[in-house]
């Protein structure tokens, strides 16, 4: 580990702490319906959207109506995307002449992008036409992110309101998210990205005659506009197969830093939005602090691990001084690669600037564990935040049990209904991960595995953790195009998205109806270090209890094997 490496990590963490508040206050203004500096330009567009869709923005929905609108919208998006992918050979902007995407992969991809997972069972530059990338995938990058933020805001309203029957209007929250938050930022980011070297063209490719007289056909396309929202919306689906390791998606170290900042920006900001909405900003900082604790532990471990050579390298007699550079880019080195891996799995982004499959065994555990605990460390836009609040409810409940008082969070009594729903939301993903991995390991999914030994098990385990966590990163040695993986992963993605969103909205609906009790001497303070520590601890305990056996079969076995496979 080097001083420069740690400076990168600390500068990144410091910048996130700096931008969280402005981002959070802006989000609070947007979703509170307040006037922002973009209102004069965007208000007419917003109104036109509502008029065309027959939406009355002042009509709010209860949690059931909000959830039903969300599910209907997601369904419409899935069908449209599936159709575009299947029919891309008949659609324009297909200069490479790609055929329609095979039905299993198209279905998997449609669900993947609508659920903000962006698991990719295909290689972008050899499968997707420019039309599919733009009109199909880029659109879902935007709206799936806006849906996630909308749920987080609705969840926060559950705490902020008292005696209320509604959580907001889904269509309004969706529209404001795209118009006022995602699109303006992405326009600025795209221009920065193009200037830094990301292609933005509808041309077929850049044909090259190499110095040694060979030919190289360099794939290009409308890259920058997709990468901007890919990161800011924590989608993570690359334009190219190598994702953010590809020089066209991530040309240099400063752009790498900017991309990581945009991955975390909304997730961190939402904590402050939440504090502002419940009338006590410290509540948001406490949540962000608990995320920060888990984040720093993860980055430290991953960076330390990746500065070591792997057993395979040592067996081949490689100089261990440079650490593990297999599957890493020279311009990023080990520090920025380890940091990126932790950021992308702490948030449910899933973009990669290094190949996680080639990480050391301990280095690979960190991204895996980040996903297993539900990506609540900052998290995907919105998804991480409501995931974290579900854990906060569980923490409050456990703390209440310990001292023998009725638990309350922010003046809202936490009762049987909320705890049951929280546990449902917390258990849904582990169930999908463990059942999926068990089925894969029983023989249904072993043919897609690349590596022998415990690492092969980890490839399958990681795949289901990534799908159910709506992350999308991979131990990419795995070939996931068989029916078992395309359908199994699609099921895991749906469970990981909707079996968390629906209970979360139900909790919010139930909380919104309750009165807010003023804090008393017996209330458990939820802004202090005790709460922060307990919350971080509960997350790790739930994760460890659920997944230790599976981790023992995969990365822990590999780390202690003492031989090659």
């Amino acid at each position, binding site marked *: 580990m080097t001083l420069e490496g740690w400076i990168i990590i600390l*500068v990144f963490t410091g910048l996130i702490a700096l931008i969280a508040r402005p981002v959070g206050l802006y989000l609070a203004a947007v979703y509170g319906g307040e006037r922002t500096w973009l209102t004069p330009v965007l208000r007419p567009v917003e109104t036109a*959207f509502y008029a065309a*869709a*027959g939406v009355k923005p002042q009509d709010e929905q209860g949690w059931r109506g909000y959830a*039903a609108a969300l599910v209907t*919208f997601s369904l419409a998006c899935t069908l*449209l995307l599936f159709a575009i992918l299947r029919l891309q050979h008949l659609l324009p902007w297909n200069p490479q002449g790609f055929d329609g995407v095979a039905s299993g992969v198209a279905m998997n991809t449609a669900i993947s992008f609508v659920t903000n997972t962006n698991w990719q069972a295909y*290689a972008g530059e*050899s499968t997707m036409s420019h039309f599919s990338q733009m*009109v199909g995938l880029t659109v879902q990058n*935007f*709206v799936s992110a806006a849906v996630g933020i909308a749920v987080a805001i609705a969840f926060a309203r559950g705490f902020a309101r008292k005696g209320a029957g509604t959580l907001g209007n889904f269509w309004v929250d969706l529209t404001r998210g795209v118009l006022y938050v995602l*699109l303006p930022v992405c326009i600025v980011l*795209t221009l920065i990205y*193009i200037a830094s*070297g990301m*292609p*933005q063209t509808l041309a077929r490719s*850049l044909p*090259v005659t190499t*110095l*040694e007289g060979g030919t*190289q056909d*360099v*794939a*290009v396309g*409308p890259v*920058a506009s997709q990468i901007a929202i890919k990161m800011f919306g924590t989608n993570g689906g690359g334009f*190219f*197969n*190598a994702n953010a*390791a*590809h*020089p066209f998606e991530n040309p*240099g*170290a*400063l752009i*790498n830093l900017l991309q990581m900042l945009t991955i975390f920006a909304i997730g961190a900001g939402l904590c402050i939005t939440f504090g502002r909405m419940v009338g006590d900003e410290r509540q948001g900082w406490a949540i962000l602090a608990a995320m920060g604790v888990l984040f720093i532990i993860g980055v430290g471990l991953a960076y330390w691990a990746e500065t070591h050579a792997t*057993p395979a*390298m040592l067996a*081949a*007699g*490689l*100089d*261990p001084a*440079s650490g593990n*550079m*297999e599957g*890493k*880019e*020279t311009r*990023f080195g080990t520090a920025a690669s380890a940091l990126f891996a932790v950021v992308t799995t702490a948030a449910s982004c899933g973009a990669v600037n290094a*190949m996680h499959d*080639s990480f*050391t065994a301990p280095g690979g555990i960190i991204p895996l564990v980040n996903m297993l605990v539900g990506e609540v460390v900052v998290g995907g836009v919105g998804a991480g935040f409501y995931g974290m609040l579900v854990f906060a409810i569980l923490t409050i409940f456990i703390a209440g049990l310990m001292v023998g008082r009725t638990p309350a969070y922010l003046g809202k009594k936490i009762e049987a209904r909320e705890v049951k729903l929280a546990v449902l939301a917390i258990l849904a993903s582990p169930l999908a991960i463990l059942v999926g991995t068990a089925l894969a390991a029983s023989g249904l999914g072993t043919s897609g595995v*690349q590596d022998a030994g415990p*690492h092969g098990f980890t490839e399958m385990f990681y795949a289901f953790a990534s799908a159910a966590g709506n992350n999308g990163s991979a*131990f990419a*040695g795995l070939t996931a195009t068989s029916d078992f993986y395309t359908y199994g992963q699609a099921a895991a993605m749906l469970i990981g998205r909707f079996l968390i969103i629906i209970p979360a909205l139900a909790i919010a609906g139930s909380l919104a109806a309750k009165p807010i009790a003023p804090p008393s001497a017996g209330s458990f303070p939820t802004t202090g270090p005790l709460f922060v520590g307990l919350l971080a601890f509960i997350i790790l305990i739930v994760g460890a209890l659920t997944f230790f056996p599976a981790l023992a079969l995969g990365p822990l076995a590999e780390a202690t094997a003492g031989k090659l*496979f």
Partner: protein
Amino acid sequence: MLSHLRPALVMTLLFTLLTGLAYPLAMTGLGQMLFPAQANGSAIVRNGAVVGSSLIGQSFTSDRYVWGRPSAAGAGYDGRASSGSNLGPTSQVLADRIVADAGRYGVPSSEIPSELLTASASGLDPHISPRAALFQAGRVAAARSIPVSDVETLIAQYTEQPALGVFGEPRVNILALNLALDERSATAR
């Protein structure tokens, strides 16, 4: 659900038009106008021919050139098939590959800068470390019949330092370096 059908369909259509067509096409137009070189792939043109992209590595096998990292992109540096090897930390296949690749340098693998024997994440990494470039200076100089110091000077000249002293590793873009080597040889002749 039925009452949500119209907003769901109309919103899907409107967002598709806005974020799937208007946004990327406007960005393409702006990008082509403001930054045409970058927007089209950062081509390097010599004598009217595109000899590479300044961001994308290419395969080098001749002794006259500084070699790059092993590539898992297609058959090697395939611009349409970016990929890492994805071989794991206890992979026998990886160990064997490292030993096989080391043969090319004619010295034991322990003496070779490790990124010359590890595949990059993209398979298109255009860089190696200055140390890995200097390691090859002798071979390149001999193949070109020029003094080693000339090669070393060029390497120093083409070494990029971390931005702001911290961000990014010190590195050499070997396509740029090899082009410079060719130009030096051409002018010396």
